[in-house]
């Protein structure tokens, strides 16, 4: 165990030193001056459209878009808040704690519903439910489970089919995975039973939604739990074999959030970008956005959205986190 942590530390340290990014793209490089640096956990493909429309309207601005994991967004922002102008992440809890700890610059004159912003600093701009994605082939003639309870029963009924072929987030590595897991655990004990069942089936653990969907499409796994539906939806269109299930018992919806770094050197441009982002994601008239829009709470199918409130910091408490992770490991890592 100790070696394991040491290894993670070394890898992380190495990553920080080398500034390794999952992806790194510059927009409108022709523009002079220092580019607006956005650190984000959102894949470039999904976010590019938003940046491109912004630079189209602001041709003098160049943007550098840096993609990394949710945990890394938090760590890098804490380490070097001046190095980035805007931080975007799907891990609402980490983002809220960054703002709480004073890393964000409040924006003026942005009208946004109170539930979708915190301290006029942290702004939510998507509504993305966590989903169960299954490969229909695994359920051949059987009904596809619509809730966690049905999923548990289905997994228990045919362990042979699912052994080694179920996947979920490694909550130790993924901030978003941890957020989903803690919110699920808070909502129902079913979560822990599902984890135990998946643990018994030698569940595979992933850092990111993207890899889970990759393995679903190439058949390595047949069921993924708590996948980001926005990522899944993008792939499912081309993969008839996959089906996205929004669990009917208790749904968990995450809002992607962004804030301007308090040490930004371009507060005006960063503020404008935030306004652009919020306006774009709030308007329902937009044709086909690459990222799901922010849904008004009262409309739609009534998925419970994780609230932007200080309570998000509860599970980030080191004692609480250690306790949760140990329970999670007990349940999921049984060998």
């Amino acid at each position, binding site marked *: 165990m100790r070696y394991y942590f040491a290894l993670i530390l070394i890898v992380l340290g190495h990553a920080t030193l080398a500034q390794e990014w999952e992806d790194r793209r510059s927009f409108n490089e022709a523009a002079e001056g220092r580019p607006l640096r956005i650190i984000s956990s959102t894949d470039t493909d999904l976010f590019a459209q938003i940046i491109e429309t912004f630079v189209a309207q602001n041709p003098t601005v160049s943007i550098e878009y840096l993609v990394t994991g949710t945990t890394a967004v938090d760590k890098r922002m804490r380490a070097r808040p001046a190095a980035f102008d805007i931080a975007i992440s799907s891990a609402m809890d980490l983002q809220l704690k960054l703002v*709480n700890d004073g890393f964000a610059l409040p924006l003026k004159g942005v009208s946004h519903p109170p539930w979708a912003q915190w301290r006029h600093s942290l702004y939510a701009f998507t509504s993305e439910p966590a989903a169960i994605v299954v490969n229909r082939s695994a359920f051949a003639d059987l009904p596809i489970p619509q809730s966690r309870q049905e999923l548990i029963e289905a997994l228990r009924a045919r362990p042979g089919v699912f052994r080694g072929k179920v996947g979920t987030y490694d909550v130790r590595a993924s901030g978003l995975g941890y957020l989903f897991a803690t919110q699920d655990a808070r909502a129902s004990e079913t979560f822990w039973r599902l984890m135990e069942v998946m643990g018994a089936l030698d569940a595979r653990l992933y850092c990111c939604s993207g890899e889970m969907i990759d393995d679903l499409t190439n058949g390595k796994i047949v069921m993924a739990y708590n996948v980001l539906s926005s990522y899944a939806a993008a792939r499912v269109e081309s993969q008839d074999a996959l089906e996205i299930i929004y669990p009917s018992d208790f749904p968990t919806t995450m809002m992607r959030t962004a804030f301007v770094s308090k040490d930004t050197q371009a507060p005006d441009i960063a503020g404008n970008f935030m306004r652009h982002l919020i306006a774009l994601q709030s308007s329902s008239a937009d044709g086909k956005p690459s990222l799901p829009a922010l849904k008004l709470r009262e409309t739609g199918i009534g998925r419970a959205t994780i609230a932007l409130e200080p309570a998000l910091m509860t599970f980030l*408490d080191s004692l609480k986190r250690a306790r949760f992770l140990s329970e999670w490991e007990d349940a999921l890592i049984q060998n």
Partner: protein
Amino acid sequence: MASGIDSIMVDSQAISSSLRARLALTLISGAAVLALLLYFAVRNYAVQVAQEGQDSILTASVTSILDAASIRNDVVEVDIPYAAFSMLSTPADDRVFYAIYQDGALLSGYQDLEFYGETGKAIQSNLLRGATVRQVSASRIFIGTDRRTEIQIVLAQTQDAMAETLDRISRNAALIGGGFFVLAVALSFWATSVAMGPLNKLTSSITRRGPQDLSPFKKPVPQEMAPLVNSLNSLMGRLDHSLSQSEDFIAEAAHRVRTPLATVRSYAEATLQRVDKEENREAMRSMIRAIDESSRAAGQLLDHAMITFRADHLERQEIDLVDLVQDLVLRMNPIADMKDLSLVVHGDPVVAYAGDPILLQNAIRNLIDNAMRYGPPDSTIEITLTAALKVQISVRDHGPGFPDPEIKTLTTRFQRGKNAEGSIGSGLGLTIVQDVAAAHGGEIELANLSEGGACVTISL
């Protein structure tokens, strides 16, 4: 003495300040002070209530965290309930900081948050990361199998929501205070005019009084005004007393001066009869003339004093001016005869007028007297009375007339015409006539007639 009464009450009384303004100002400043007090009282109370609200939530939150702590196998576990932070949600999204210590060593949370609750619970305001926070410290002692340990929790929250609430309450308190002030100002003006009412009533009731009414003011007045009314009444009493004294004095003086002069004159006349030497006779004649002059002057002076007094206390009664003039002419005829003058009365048969007969008689006598003085022998003095448009009495003679440049100044006291040298007179005659006319609300007009002679007209 009596002539001064009116001039005292003239409009240009020196004014030091306004009672009404002073009263209103006092009430308004009182209201302003009260409004300010109200504002601060409401605000302070709101601060207290809002602070108590935040404190109780923070305390509940800390308590719930402490309650969730447990000791298992001598290891303390602090499992922060989700609700502990959830209850700290505020409309202003206040920041939350916490720290968990075990016997002074940080277990988790923000290490810049110090534990202060050495003696149980402690609530205080503090400055943390550039923001004012309200911070609650609480601790709980756990007894393990072989040792006791203390878990200390500090929870802090920024005060943005409270500041917003306070702003709102302050605005409302200011509105309430302002409204109270405006209302109080309106009430002050109302109260002032109510309080000033009796004073105004007293003023108008005294102003409306007749010129002779020096009786005490008897209507009930508010307690505060009683001393003023008492003083006023006593002043009027003294005034009344001294006025009647001066009236008595005038009558007394007239009597005392005229009687001896008449005696002296008759002695002088008698002596003149017995003196043969021409130079002595001349001296006696001069003496008689001087006595006449003195007597006339004394008479006119007393007339004038009497007229001034009567004019101030004008007593009108219905009289027929023609009767009055006829009576006068009858009495003056002997003197006129001595000077070979004839007095003729023209005009309406009856001229009724409401006035003071003594004053009017005095005025007309003075006019006739003047006319007889300046009228040449064997001429007539015509007295005309009309009541056509207004009552007019004119007296004309056939003398030399008024000297033109002096026609304006002749009515002032002790002013005699240039052509009056050699005749007896004090210069009070026309002044008396004018005072009488003015007392009756009339005027006099001096004119020289084209065919010669002077004409004085009294229009009433």
